[in-house]
């Protein structure tokens, strides 16, 4: 190319006549101007044009709101209504009711998120004690909304509670509180409430949320203090919050030659599992199915214990049981929700009876165990059914009540319905036909809402961070839309939590989590991700290099000439 240019120059040379010095400077000036204007055109038109045409499309994201979310404070508030029964309040105290009082309690979780628990004990009612017979009639008294509590204060002498119990927690969102002798000394209702406060706080922690619940719900977001192993294990047991769950019951029959198993799973599911799931419907959607797997073996060979003439599975070998079985379970083809597996293993005739031993080498009474965030396994021994004269295969009907009792308890644990141990002096109502009390549902909803809010926030902030770091990613309008709707839902959820509207808060938090996941896993984000810069420049260089070098050289020349001219002027002045 260079030789070509020189050739052209020498061609031109012949055509140019003798020039005078002023002509020479004039034409040099013209050349300089031309070079400058070409450079100006390149910089003002070419570069923006190139920039605009090769730019990746990035829709606008609400970055400032996302950053606000990252260091947001979450405030939970629960309404607590305190109702005094006749005989607990003196007439002069009665005059002061109703009144509202707010109590704040701040919990800091590792400095990242600050949770403020607010309870509003409102004293509004004054009821006749005679009405309060039992829990059911307590419920008919007032249908309290989701997330709120009613505490009935009953006189010390009341016979509703056994002697040594101070607090009774019902199946609904109600509790009975026996007023202590020393508590009656207060003159005003405020003083009375101040006396009652520690008790009410305890009730609130059992029935709504406590510091540990919230910490567990946030365990993915906030690093837990080391050494607190027990609580880590507890928090990791339950499934993560998800809009839906698939529950699969599998009957494992490793030896169809020696026994033919029958289980009435349809009836058992209708009787035992469905009521619980109906109750849990606000939290998530559940779908149920069951299957029977033949020749499904456990991953470990049980050890024969000659002392009890039974086979045993040690607690440390249980971890190896699941993997080979899981290959047979099959993934769910119809949805991508997490699957809760419940396996009923009936050992074959040569390996039965089979018992599971715990850490202390003791037989586990339920003969079952569960694996965190996976499901549960129960071993069902049928060796009692074999009689010496029996013809193989033996028909065996499985006692579903026994099996479902274990699976229901495991299901509650895996869904995060924690049966918290009651403080001394508390009496819990036995769980009803649904297997879940209203306040247990509330507890679950509190922690699920907080978990959803935390997860959605993490997803959205990390997505924003990622998009900020990698400029190559195309952000389409639908992603921006999802992100904005996630942010709006998050803000709404936080506001509803603050206002104490638990149902709405959970709903919004679910919407937020769904929108944020959809945005995060959108396949269009990946399209241009792997378009490396060096390849881009390999394509641009053949065009850019020959175009820019002459411009740069002539600009350099102009600059150096101008400098020289100035120096000459300086010399002239001197």
């Amino acid at each position, binding site marked *: *190319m260079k030789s070509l*240019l020189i050739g*052209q*120059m020498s061609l*031109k040379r012949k055509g*140019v*006549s003798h*020039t005078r010095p002023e002509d*020479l400077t004039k*034409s*040099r000036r013209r*050349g*300089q101007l*031309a*070079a400058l204007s070409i450079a100006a055109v390149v910089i003002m038109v070419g570069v923006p044009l190139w920039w605009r045409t090769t730019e990746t499309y990035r829709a606008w994201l609400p970055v400032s709101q996302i950053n606000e979310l990252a260091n947001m404070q979450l405030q939970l508030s629960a309404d607590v209504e305190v109702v005094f029964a006749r005989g607990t309040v003196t007439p002069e105290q009665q005059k002061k009711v109703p009144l509202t009082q707010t109590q704040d309690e701040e919990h800091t979780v590792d400095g990242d998120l600050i949770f403020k628990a607010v309870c509003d004990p409102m004293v509004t009612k004054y009821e006749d004690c005679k009405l309060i017979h039992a829990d059911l009639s307590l419920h008919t008294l007032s249908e309290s909304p989701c997330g709120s509590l009613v505490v009935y204060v009953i006189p010390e002498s009341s016979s509703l509670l056994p002697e040594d119990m101070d607090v009774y927690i019902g199946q609904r969102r109600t509790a009975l509180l026996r007023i202590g002798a020393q508590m009656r000394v207060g003159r005003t209702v405020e003083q009375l409430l101040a006396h009652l406060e520690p008790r009410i706080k305890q009730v609130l922690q059992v029935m709504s949320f406590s510091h540990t619940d919230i910490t567990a719900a946030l365990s993915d977001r906030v690093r837990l203090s080391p050494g607190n192993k027990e609580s880590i294990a507890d928090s990791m047991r339950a499934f993560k919050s998800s809009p839906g769950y698939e529950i699969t019951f599998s009957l494992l029959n490793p030896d*169809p*030659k020696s026994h033919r198993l*029958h289980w*009435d799973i*349809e*009836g*058992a599911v*209708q*009787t035992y599992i469905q009521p619980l799931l109906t109750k849990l419907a606000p939290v998530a959607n559940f*779908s149920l*199915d*069951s*299957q*029977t797997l*033949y*020749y499904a073996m456990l991953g470990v060979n049980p050890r024969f214990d000659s002392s009890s003439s039974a086979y045993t599975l040690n*607690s440390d070998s249980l971890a190896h049981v699941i993997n080979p079985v899981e290959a*047979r379970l099959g*993934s769910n*083809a*119809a949805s991508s929700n997490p699957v809760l597996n419940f396996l009923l293993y009936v050992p074959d005739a040569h390996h039965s009876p089979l018992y599971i031993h*715990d850490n202390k080498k003791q037989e*586990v009474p*339920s003969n*079952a165990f*569960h694996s965190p965030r996976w499901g549960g396994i129960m071993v069902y021994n049928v060796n009692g059914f074999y009689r010496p004269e029996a013809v193989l*295969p033996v028909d065996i*009907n499985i006692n579903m*009540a026994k099996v*479902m*009792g*274990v699976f*229901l*308890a*495991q299901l*509650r*644990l895996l869904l995060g319905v924690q049966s918290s141990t009651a403080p001394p002096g508390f009496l819990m109502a*036995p769980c*009803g*036909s649904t*297997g879940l009390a209203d306040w247990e549902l509330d507890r679950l909803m509190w922690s699920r809402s907080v978990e959803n809010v935390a997860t959605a926030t993490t997803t959205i902030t990390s997505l924003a961070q990622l998009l900020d770091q990698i400029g190559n990613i195309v952000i389409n309008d639908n992603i921006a839309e999802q992100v904005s709707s996630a942010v709006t839902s998050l803000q709404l959820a936080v506001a509803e939590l603050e206002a104490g509207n638990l149902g709405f808060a959970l709903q919004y938090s679910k919407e937020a989590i769904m929108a944020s996941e959809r945005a995060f896993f959108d396949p269009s984000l990946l399209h241009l991700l792997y378009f490396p810069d060096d390849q881009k420049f390999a394509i641009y260089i*053949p065009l850019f290099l*020959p*175009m820019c070098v*002459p411009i740069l050289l002539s600009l350099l020349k102009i600059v150096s000439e101008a400098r020289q001219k100035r120096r000459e002027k300086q010399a002239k002045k001197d």
Partner: protein
Amino acid sequence: MAITMPLSSIIHKQPQKQRDKWPSNDFQEELVIRPLHSGDIYASFQFRTLWETDFMRGNKVSHYRLFPKSLGQVISKFSVRELHISFTQGYWRTMQWGQPFLPSPPGAELWVWFQDSVTDVDGTWKELTNVLSGIFCASLNFIDSTNTVQPSASFKPLGIGNVTDHSFLRYATLPREIVCTENLTPWKKLLPCGSKAGLAVLLKSEKLFHSSFHSQAVHIRPVCQDWQCKTTSWELRQTLNVVFDLHTPGQGKREWSLFKMFSRTLTEACPLASSSKIYIDITDNPQGEQFEVSPATPLLSQAMVLGDRRTFSVYDLTQQITFGTVRSLNLLIRWKSSEDMLRPLLHGERYVAGYGLQTGEIHTLMYNNHPYRSFPVLLLDSVPWYLRLYIHTLTVASKGKDNKPSYIHYQPSKDRVRPHLLEMLVQLPPNSVTEVTVQFERALLKWTEYTPDPNHGFYVGSSVISSLVPSIVAMDTNSTREQPLFSSFFPCKEESSYFVRVYTEPLLVNLPTPDFSMPYNVICLTCTVVAVGYGSLYNLLTRSFQIDEPSPGLAKRIANIIRKMRGVPPL
């Protein structure tokens, strides 16, 4: 870790004993072995699971016993009425081997009838192919609108239900699909006994894929339980057909045994199976003059299959006596002589003619080998859009004369959207070859549309020839009667004919393929040209030109130096 929970409060409603109401499940397994006249061995496994259920009603809770859960979920989620999927490695040589019990084209084939409650059939089809792709570890996710067709006549539902609206039918083939172990393992997992017991223990992949032909399929359809069709059930048929080449192992001796072919022998039936049988086709060998089967069995059975009455030796695996004293069954066949076979009545072939990379011609040959009967056949051709068919050049000729099809359904392709679909009903005269030719032009693809290794060529799926072939013997039209599985797949409507589907070879067509470093070369060349033009323009605009005194020559310079030394003024 262990937990328990008292259920005293919950157990107030004891579930009633409903054993009688439990939906009945049934499982049957069967292996047919047919010595072929070419000397090869054809082994056909069929496993049938029946699941009695009211499939028309959407039932949310689903409980599976013998039926695999993964397929059950697919059926209920996508409202599938019938699903037929096959994976085949190798091509079935009809002229040498006769008709297979279950035909299938090379590669993968999928056809599905959806229930009429489905509103977005195309969307459901797309999702279904993706899910099936996961279940069978196959590249079914490459099925899209460009290789999906809606045949109007060739694929009728095989189960119950009179659906005629073919907008609920989708058909696609992937002729390039390669079938291997990873497809066999999920297929075996669908069996109730897995590969632990029963006939499935023979399915060892290292032997199965060392064969001339391997085809595995899954067919799901609703069937009647009784002849009045009072109760219906889902039928899942898993079939596996394999042809072993006896000459390649090359011991010279023509001898065949279960152990030699599958490296296993049978010791038991699947305990869940209500019937478990092995059939050996001895029709051509009534007196044992061609080959000898050992151990011998007294059980003989006759079945009408593919228009012929065949005789089979039957080994019932549910009977302990079958396994003899060694408790294992190793069937053995020794050949004595060989003989020519009966030619199949219907046969199809296909090839591409023409030269160059611009145009070509597809020839489809259909053979009617019946000596005196003519019968109609339905030909289905699905050609990808990048072969642009000239439909005006379509000719159908038999015995040198024009043979006008009585029905033609042609759907032209749309570039990058849908393929050509050509269906026609042709009457095949007796003892004749009918040739269908159509010319095409090869399209230029965009450079991202080429497959990896584009110089290998592009596959065009098999043509499908479906026909009711006149039968020599009276066929059995009662579909609910107890009969071997291999003879009961295609429902038989009349006694005088039987249904046959024949697949032709897939085509491999070369398309004009560019050099793929071309884009970068073009960029470089264009940039250079632009830069040269720009450079000269730039120089013209910015440089100022003046005449320089040419520098003195070398001789003059030397002379000047000498003159300077002498003190004389320079030149």
